[in-house]
C-alpha cells in the first residue's frame, strides 16, 4: 500500500492536525475521493466495495486511483450483484471492517433493498447493541443528466423511512470531503447520497482543518427573513439561485441545506421557520410521502403558531421518473421554486 499519489494531489495531513493553508478548490467528485482517501489512510479497516470501482475508478471516477494506491485488497471490484455487495459488506462489518459500498446508480440499489432494510438497519437493534455495522452506502442520485431509465432516481425517502439508517447528502465540495469522513467514522450505517449532476461543481475546502459542521447539522446557506427554503443535495444550488432571483424582486429568502435527512436538524429548521413564518420544501423526489411530507408535518406540529402559510412542497410529480426529454419540467427549477415562494407569500 502506498499513499504517494495521494500526497501529490492532496495536502491532507495525517492525524488531522490543523494546518494553516490556503483553501483548495476542487470538485465534489474529487472531494469525495479525497475524503475516502483520507479515511483509508487513517484506518486500515476501511475497505471499498462496488462495481467497476477499481481500475476504472467507478463510472463517475469517484474512487479513481484508490485501488492503485491502496491495493485490490482494500478496493474490491465485486461481481455484478447488489444484494451480494450489501450482504458481504454486512459480513465484513461484523468482522470489524468499515465497508464503504458504491451503488453504481440510484436505480440499482433495489436488489440490495432487502439487505439494507432487513439487516443493515436492524442489526444493532436486534443484537441488543452487541453488533455494530459501521458501513457507508454511497448512492449517486438524482436526475438532470439526460440519462436513460433507472439512472436519475431520488429514493432517499425509502431509507429515511427506515429506522436504523442514517441518511445524509452533500451539496458542496467541502461537505463532500468532510461528511464522507464523518460517515465512515460513524458506528451506525450511513446512506450517503451524492448529487451526481453536481459532481463537477467546484468549491473551496480547508483540507487540514477540522470539519466545520457535524454530520447531521443543517446549514443556513443564504440568510433571509421572508420565507424559508428547505433543500438538500442537488437542489441546494437551485434554491440558492432562486433566493438570489427573489432578492432582486425584494423578497428575502433563507435557504437551509438540510444535509442530513435522518436525523433532521430540527432546531435549525424551526429557528428559521419561526423567524420567517413560511416554509417551502424543495426536492427532486416525488412529493407523495417524500421528505417534504415529513418536514411539513414537523413544522406544522412544532411551529404552528409561527406559521403565516401552509408548508409548500416543490418536487418531482408523482409519476415514475420520466424519459429524459421531460426532465427539465419534471424536476423543480428556478421558476417552480419562485412560484412556490410567491404562493407562500400570498397567504
Amino acid at each position, binding site marked *: 500500500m502506498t499513499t504517494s499519489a495521494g500526497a501529490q494531489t492532496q495536502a491532507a495531513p495525517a492525524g488531522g492536525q490543523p494546518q494553516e493553508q490556503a483553501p483548495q478548490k476542487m470538485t465534489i467528485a474529487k472531494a469525495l475521493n479525497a475524503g475516502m482517501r483520507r479515511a483509508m489512510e487513517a484506518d486500515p479497516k476501511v475497505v471499498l466495495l462496488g462495481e467497476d470501482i477499481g*481500475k476504472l475508478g467507478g*463510472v463517475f471516477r469517484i474512487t479513481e486511483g484508490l485501488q492503485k494506491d491502496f491495493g485490490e485488497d482494500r478496493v474490491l471490484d465485486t461481481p*455484478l*450483484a447488489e444484494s451480494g455487495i450489501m450482504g458481504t459488506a454486512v459480513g465484513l462489518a461484523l468482522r470489524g471492517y468499515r465497508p464503504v459500498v458504491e451503488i453504481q446508480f440510484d436505480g440499482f440499489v433495489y436488489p440490495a433493498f432487502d439487505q439494507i432494510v432487513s439487516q443493515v438497519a436492524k442489526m444493532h437493534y436486534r443484537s441488543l447493541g452487541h453488533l455494530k455495522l459501521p458501513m457507508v452506502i454511497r448512492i449517486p442520485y438524482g436526475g438532470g443528466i439526460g440519462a436513460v431509465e433507472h439512472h436519475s432516481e431520488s429514493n432517499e425517502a425509502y431509507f429515511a423511512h427506515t429506522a436504523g439508517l442514517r441518511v445524509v447528502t452533500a451539496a458542496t465540495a467541502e461537505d463532500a470531503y468532510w461528511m464522507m469522513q464523518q460517515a465512515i467514522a460513524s458506528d451506525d450505517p450511513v446512506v450517503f447520497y451524492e448529487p451526481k449532476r453536481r459532481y463537477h461543481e467546484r468549491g473551496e475546502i480547508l483540507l487540514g482543518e477540522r470539519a466545520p459542521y457535524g454530520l447531521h447539522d443543517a446549514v443556513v446557506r443564504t440568510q433571509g427573513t421572508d420565507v424559508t427554503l428547505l433543500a438538500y443535495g442537488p437542489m441546494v444550488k437551485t434554491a440558492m439561485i432562486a433566493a438570489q432571483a427573489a432578492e432582486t424582486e425584494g423578497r428575502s429568502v433563507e435557504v437551509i441545506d438540510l444535509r442530513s435527512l435522518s436525523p433532521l436538524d430540527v432546531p435549525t429548521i424551526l429557528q428559521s421557520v419561526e423567524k420567517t413564518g413560511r416554509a417551502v420544501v424543495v426536492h427532486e423526489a416525488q412529493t407523495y410521502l417524500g421528505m417534504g411530507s415529513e418536514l411539513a408535518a414537523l413544522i406544522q406540529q412544532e411551529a404552528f403558531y409561527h406559521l403565516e402559510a401552509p408548508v409548500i412542497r416543490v418536487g418531482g*410529480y408523482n*409519476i*415514475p421518473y420520466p*424519459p429524459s*426529454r421531460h*426532465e427539465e419540467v419534471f424536476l423543480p427549477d428556478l421558476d417552480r421554486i419562485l412560484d412556490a415562494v410567491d404562493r407562500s407569500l400570498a397567504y
Partner: protein
Amino acid sequence: MSDDVVAPVDTAAPATHEPPARDITDGGPDMVQFLDAEGHRVPVTEVNSPYAQYLEDVDGEMLRSLYRDLVLVRRVDAEGHALQRQGELGLWPSLLGQEAAQVGAGRAMRPQDYAFPGYREHGVAWCKGVDPVNLLGMFRGVNHGGWDSNENNFHLYTIVIGNQMLHATGYAMGVQKDGLVGTGDPDRDTAVMAFTGDGGTAQGDYNEALVFSAVAQSPVVFYVQNNHWAISEPNDRQFIIPPYQRARGFGIPGVRVDGNDVLASLAVTRAALDRARGGQGPTLIEAFTYRMGAHTTSDDPTKYRIAAEVDLWKKKDPIDRLRKHLVAEGLGDDEWFGAIDAEADDLAQRIRTACQQMPNPPHEEMFENVYVDEHPLVTRERDEFAAYQASFEED
C-alpha cells in the same frame, strides 16, 4: 471436457500493459463451432455433431440472408453510435462484435417465440422484425421503450441487470400452462428466450431464474452473451466456473457456442428451442464472443483493457468469416456484396432521418399510463401542470 475449461476462467487476465498470457479468444474444446475464423466449415466433431442436423436447411440462399442480416445489424449499430456522437441520442450500447451471436439466436426463433432482451440486443430485435427506429426512442430520451412487445414478441429492453431472466421464466411457465409445449405442432409450440451478459450471471435474479426454470421445466432458453467484459470487469471478477458449465449444477444442460460463428449460434439455439418447445425444459447457451467497442458511448475502455486484446478478437470477426466463406463457395461476388452495402446505406439513412425527426413528446404525456385506471393524484398534478405551463404562455 478438459481440465483446461474447468480451471478458473481468465485467471491469467491481462495486466494493463501486456498482451494476454493465453489466448482468451479460445473458447476451449467444448465450444460448438461450424465456421472457423478463416471461413472454413469445421469438420464434424463429437462436439458439434449433435447440432449438425439443425443446419441441414442452410443452403446458399440462407447463407446469403444470414450475411445480409449481419451486415445490416452492424450498420444499425454504427448508426446508433454515430447518432449519439452527434447529439441525437443520449446513449448507445454497441453490439459491435456480437452480431453473429445475436443473429444466430434471433434467426433460430419462430414468430411465436418470445424474447426478453437486455439493452444490447439490437440484432435480436432486428431478426424479430422490430423496426430499429423503435429502439432509438429510449436512448433519445423520448420514451422508456415504447414499442408494443406483443407485436413482435420482443419485450422491452431491461436495463436493471438480471430482472428479465425471471420474466422470461415466468412467461415460459405461462406458455406451459397454456398447453403450448409438446403438442408437436411447429406453428403452435412456443419457447421463450432470455438474454443477458457475462456480468449478469452474478446477479441474484439470474440464478433464481435458473432454479425456477429447472424446477418448472419451463420452455425457456437462457442466452448468455459472454463478451468478456461487464463494463470494466473481466470474466474472472464474475465467475470461476463458466456459465455453460455452471448450468448443469442447476439441472439445466449448458452449451458453449462460438458466438462469432453465426451458423453455430443458429444451430445451437435451434436445438435448445426445439427442446423447450418439445417440453424437455430449459437450456443455457453461453455465446463466446467479445465486446469490440466501449461498454456504451459513456465508457472509456482504455482505462481498463489493452488494445492487444481487441486486436486478437478482430481476427475472429463474425462478418469477415462468413464473407470469406461465401466467396470461397462462389455465393457472393463484389457486385452482390456491394448491393448489401448499398442496402445498409439506405437503412442507415432511413434510421438517421427518422431519429432526427423524432419529435419531443408533449410534456403532458409524461402523466399518461402511470396507471391503467384513473388515479386522482396523477390527474390533479397533470391539470396543475397544464395550468402552470399555460401561465407562461399568457405572459
